[in-house]
């Protein structure tokens, strides 16, 4: 039975499938977004950030869950903002000065929807 089906397949004329290829840009964007989420997660794993979040009445575990549901665009925009900070750059192991820490915590709470402070952080409708 199997061989009969195979024979039929080989003899049939091929119609061109209009299937689409995954473009390179899509793959690049996905990789960027994944990288961005990793940056955010590393920040959320920091003791000083967690303490600051708890002081705001935010559960760090819930915050992490919200990170997972960020859109790619949101995640990338967040990571870009983090990378622009003078001290931090993209190395989240650095010691954060107080001003940078406060900024980061507010950025996190904004992007995760707990606060609405920064105009450049777009909200979902």
């Amino acid at each position, binding site marked *: 039975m199997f061989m009969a089906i195979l024979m039929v397949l080989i003899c049939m004329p091929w119609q061109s499938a209009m299937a689409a290829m995954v473009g390179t840009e899509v793959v690049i964007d996905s990789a960027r977004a994944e990288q961005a989420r990793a940056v955010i997660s590393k920040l959320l794993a920091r003791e000083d950030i967690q303490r600051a979040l708890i002081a705001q009445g935010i559960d760090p575990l819930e915050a992490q869950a919200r990170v997972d549901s960020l859109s790619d665009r949101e995640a990338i925009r967040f990571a870009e903002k983090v990378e622009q900070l*003078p001290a931090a750059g993209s190395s989240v192991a650095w010691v954060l000065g107080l001003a940078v820490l406060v900024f980061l915590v507010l950025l996190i709470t904004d992007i995760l929807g707990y606060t609405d402070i920064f105009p450049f952080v777009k909200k979902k409708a």
Partner: protein
Amino acid sequence: MCSCAGNISRYRPEPLNGLPLRHTLDDVPFFPQADYQCGPAALAMTLAWSGLAVTPETLTASVYTPAIKGSIQPAMIGAARRFGRIAYIISAPEELIAEIAAGRPVIVLQNLGLSWYPVWHYAVAIGYDSKAGYMLLHSGKIPRKRMPLKLFNRTWARSDYWGMMTIPPNMIPATATEADFVESVFGLEQAGRRQAALEGYQTALTRWPANLAAGIGLANVYYAMGNLPAAEHALRETIRHIPESGAAYNNLAQVLWEQGRGPEALNAARTAVRLGGGRIDLYQETLTEIQKGLGLQPSEGNLPALDE
């Protein structure tokens, strides 16, 4: 400790980096600029350094915008790509020093005027001396012009430290990260510079064999050129390094299909759907089309899985 814009310690290499405290490039040709034509002149210098026979006049039409009497950055990037060169952007003093130390000239965008009355200017950084405290630039009508580091930093910081290298696609910048380099190669693909994009992706894969975007990109360029066997080979290599990529299997399915290898295409499309992910709708579409093309019903479990 002052961390204001006047801090020039960022131009002094870290002792452990192994970079020299001073370095000058002697192989960067100089073209004096015509009025307002610093963009074409700077670009001509780095393109000529990279092996092309160009002059500022060759480039003026591509990069100079008469209405603003200047050249905007996207135009500089676009022109570099049109010549088959990777336009790689840097944005920090440390990167500038590292790239010059590695022998690569960098176009830098300076504001030589005031913040409220800017005078934007492209120059080519060809050397530095972090002990004596100056940068060496091909600038305006002056080759190897010395600019004190403090002044250079002040004028360059105003463009957020924008710098651009124009390198052949077989060269990786000293400060390149995997993602940034692959993205800069994608710029060539986007600009339709296929041969250069091929070389760029191959260069990326030599250094970072497991980079998915480079593997997919390489196959996509071959596909665009109509070279299906090469596209197939590139995708199989990608899968070898990244066995869980639905995108690779999806694209492989398409490439196999167009080579008339239906059963293998079917298998690959099924694998893509099984791997799933964010683009599963696309993979399902590919599978459905192939099933239709083979005269199969678009539903699961029609045939036992065929071995390739």
